[in-house]
């Protein structure tokens, strides 16, 4: 499985990748997480690549994506790496309706920011996107995903945010 989270710096695309990586690790997979760094970060563009598999994982950078999470419109350029029939989760708050997307891909439109605000957690648009992605692609069972999400924030000493984050996750999960 190869997933890219892409967006502006500040949209939490690195953290989103890490959350997915932790879920895959919990599932007993081999995992890599690779951030955009250095020159690729210029202009506020950020992304993280997560790969997981039962066997050995090759290069950590983008090769053939199964899923692209596009938190903003410039991120759609990474669709060039997407497999035929691959899934794009589009954050409609930052991607216009008429943005061109190849019909070879399956597009899931989610207003991530709106739903995050609905969960009283406006910083968690990334977690909304994860919820939507996990449901749409059937990556992990709902309860397992929520448990890992909880654990990540507990480990960071941010226990008080667990309920808010879970609410954001469920907004995304139920939106598809």
């Amino acid at each position, binding site marked *: 499985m190869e997933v890219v989270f892409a967006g502006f710096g500040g949209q939490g695309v690195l953290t989103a990748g*890490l959350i997915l*990586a*932790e879920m895959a*690790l919990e599932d007993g997979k*081999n*995992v*890599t*997480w*690779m*951030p955009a*760094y*250095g*020159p690729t970060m210029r202009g506020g563009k950020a992304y993280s690549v997560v790969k997981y598999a039962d066997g*050995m*994982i*090759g*290069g*950590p*950078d983008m*090769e*053939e994506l199964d899923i692209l999470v596009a938190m903003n419109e410039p991120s759609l350029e990474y669709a060039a790496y997407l497999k035929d029939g691959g899934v794009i989760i589009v954050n409609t708050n930052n991607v216009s309706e008429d943005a061109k997307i190849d019909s070879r891909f399956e597009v899931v439109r989610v207003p991530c920011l709106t739903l995050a605000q609905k969960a009283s957690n406006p910083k968690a648009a990334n977690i909304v996107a994860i919820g939507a992605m996990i449901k749409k692609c059937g990556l992990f069972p709902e309860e397992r995903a929520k448990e890992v999400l909880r654990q990540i924030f507990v480990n960071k000493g941010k226990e008080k945010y667990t309920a808010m984050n879970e609410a954001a996750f469920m907004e995304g999960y139920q939106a598809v």
Partner: protein
Amino acid sequence: MKKMWKGNHAIAEAAMRAGCEFYAGYPITPQTEVGEYLSSRMPELGRRFLQAENEMSAIYMIFGAYACGMRSMTSSSGPGFSLKQEGIAYLCANNFPSVLVNVQRWGPGLGTLDSSQTDYLRDTRGGGNGDYRVIVYAPNSIQETVDLMYNAFDVAEKYRNPVEILSEAALGQMMEPVEFPPFKERKEDLGWTFDGTDRPHGRIDNPGKPGALRAKVEAIMANEQRWENYMVEDADYVFVAFGLPSRTSRNAVDLLREQGIKAGLIRPITVWPFPFDAFKEIPGTVKGIISVESTDAGQLVEDVALATKRMCRGNVPVYGLFSGQKIPKTKEIVTYVNGILSGENKEVF
């Protein structure tokens, strides 16, 4: 249980567990997190972190501390590592151990921050003035980085020679699940170190000992070659790749075998000493050896050609896939082999 760790943090933690007491360095992307991590972690354990004014000063701080036997290390990337070369030559001239980390970025001069392997020739040949070699490990995962670092000080002290971990920008920046070994320390006196008493220190550059350098090189070549072979025994085409390109090459082996092309992979874990012995497994029926590397000009391919000449019968063609400022993708590698089959890609040697 394994936890997700960033490569640069993991190598730093592994150094701590291997008994590193002193780190001196100067920030440079993409390895700055090594020093950042140690600046926080070392004082917690009563060890010493020192931000030096430049790369040269840092290597001579290590030189001074390891002269006295303290497990010490420095880290840098391409341009900074160039500045350290004189100090590395001094370490070798004095027969001093040390552990050096190079998280490579691409290119000469300032270069770029892209993941690369463009320091290969410099680092495997010695890099500074004079007649010496550095033992160079080239891990291809973060767990392997940790495991190699854990033994690096022991090997450096055994041979009284610097040991380098040759990492890559992407390997420093990415995260993978890692399990760490327990803390260890070397308590015994190494016997030769500076302690104020002016006991013998055994400098290698003593003109009274001709052949000492060669003897050391031969001992290391005989004992320390490390590699991993994958499906080499019946291969028609054998990739040779280290670090991250070795991972996409291995995936390419699987893909090519699905297509009915018998591919294999030799993965050097030590790039000096180069694992000549790994080539023994190549069958006499082999049709080509392919160096897969993140360089533009082609560097590893020279060692591959040397090893092929020495270990393979006949004049086996040696090809080179040079991916420049990025890790070669699995598909590119497959396409390259198809290009050899169609006669489009020509041998380098």
